[in-house]
């Protein structure tokens, strides 16, 4: 596994996308930060704690990277070479998953750092020690949001990997991944409202787990939307992530090459 991961890191750091992504993220965050100039204090707090939209942009970028990371092996025909170098093909899949998770952690770090820098110019009037949600400081909110987003990403990346393992082209996996990520919450709400008798079962649907971060920011979601506690959402998210990665690895291993 160590050798597979080393190879994946080697390949990844030689791809333009690896170096371009942080630059795109910084530009997008800076763009949003510019628009917050002169906004109300409460809005400014929200933007800062959400890394000037960085966490949302980051999710899209990670979906693109995750999907292309898997499908490129089939697109370039390199999967044949890789498969002869390992005893079990699923190790390639898991190696790639670990790489993208690691990269997600790195990007979250970048998002926090950039937020710190942007605040010094755009949100100069606000102190990091200002109390925001849960009676915690603004900085604590930013870090908590980053951690929750990273944690939620474990399931999203798993889902994208599963979709990518079924596809030879990254476009389909990217489109479905982004669709699921941004419309999944709506789909889940609709399901829970439409099939009330099935609520005890339906509340465990994977799209409901996307509400993890929102429920942290808005505890009333537990009663009105998800019908699950933060802890239950965390466990559900992890179980679904394991399921997606497991099924994805199985499909990846059995695909005809």
């Amino acid at each position: 596994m160590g050798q597979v991961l080393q190879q994946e890191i080697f390949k990844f750091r030689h791809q333009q996308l690896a170096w371009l992504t942080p630059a795109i993220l910084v530009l997008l965050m800076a763009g949003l930060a510019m628009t917050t100039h002169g906004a109300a204090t409460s809005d400014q707090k929200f933007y800062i704690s959400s890394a000037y939209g960085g966490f949302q942009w980051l999710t899209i970028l990670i979906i693109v990277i995750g999907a292309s990371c898997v499908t490129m092996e089939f697109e370039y025909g390199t999967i044949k070479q890789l498969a002869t170098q390992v005893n079990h093909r699923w190790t390639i899949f898991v190696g790639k998953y670990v790489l993208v998770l690691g990269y997600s952690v790195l990007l979250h770090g970048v998002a926090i750092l950039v937020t710190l820098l942007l605040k010094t110019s755009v949100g100069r009037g606000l102190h990091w020690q200002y109390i925001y949600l849960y009676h915690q400081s603004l900085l604590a909110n930013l870090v908590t949001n980053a951690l929750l987003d990273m944690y939620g990403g474990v399931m999203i990346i798993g889902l994208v990997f599963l979709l990518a393992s079924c596809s030879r082209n990254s476009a389909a996996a990217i489109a479905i991944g982004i669709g699921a990520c941004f419309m999944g919450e709506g789909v889940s709400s609709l399901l829970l409202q439409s099939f009330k008798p099935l609520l005890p079962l339906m509340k465990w649907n994977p799209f409901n787990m996307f509400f993890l971060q929102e429920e942290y920011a808005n505890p009333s979601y537990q009663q009105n939307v998800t019908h699950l506690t933060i802890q239950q959402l965390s466990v559900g998210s992890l179980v679904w992530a394991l399921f997606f990665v497991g099924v994805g690895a199985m499909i990846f291993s059995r695909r005809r090459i």
Partner: protein
Amino acid sequence: MQRVQEKMVRVVGLRQTFGHRIVLRDVNFEFSAGKIVGLVGPNGAGKTTVMKALLGLLPTDAGNVRILGQPVSVNTHSVVTQQVGALIERPAIYPFLSGWQQLQLMTTSEKQITWVVQVLQMDAYIHRAAKRYSLGMKQKLGIAMALVNRPRLVILDEPMNGLDPQSVKRLRHLIVQMAGKGTTFLISSHILSELEKIVDTVILIDQGEVLLQRTMTQLRESARQSLVVQTTENAWALRVLLQADYPVTQRVRNLIVTKPVALTPLLRTLLDAHIQILKINQYQEDLETVLLRLLTERKV
């Protein structure tokens, strides 16, 4: 005491179907270490499928594959990871990496990389991004990736594709050289004239079936020989030779003696009949003709 040669590859009863299509039917063959084996057959015969099965890339319906006595399947192929290098279908290349970086993915030994780059004369472009490579350059890189670890078995699927004549010659030389040092090669190629120059053994496959496995010596022996004679009076010469019981036919301006015969008595027969001989050539079937004949005979 006779030295027992180590079996490099042993394939027994290999069967494979894709849907309703039978791709391999009870494929059996084996060969020893240090040999250069040619896997030949028409398009869609099953050559690449056999090679994929040898590499453990393909789950098979029945049969078994062994390399150096160790079993090979999709789930068990440690012998492949350690002892086999391969180029299957098209070179497996990441366009964003340079040739050198691709080779770094295969081995950590810079010495090995330098060796393979030099021996295949890739120095001029090895540090260039692979997306800027021509077809021939990519093919060479694919071959280099198969050879760089100096594996005991090298499987090459159509290695001459896209190579210029000089590179083909250099590759031929390299293969013979490496085989001399104990590396075994299994090579599929459509360019039989090129394969003929290096292989020890030929495995002929058609419609998923191994039709024959012969050494080149055996194939040369089974190649038909004929004598082409041109005289000033072909019609008269034909009658004379037929009367003398020679197996002869007339084709355009030539007389063809279809079996190997002693030359002196034949010439004497013609000269005794006062026939002037203009030209005489001996012709032997090449590998391509022999194999095509065998394929046609089987279909008939």
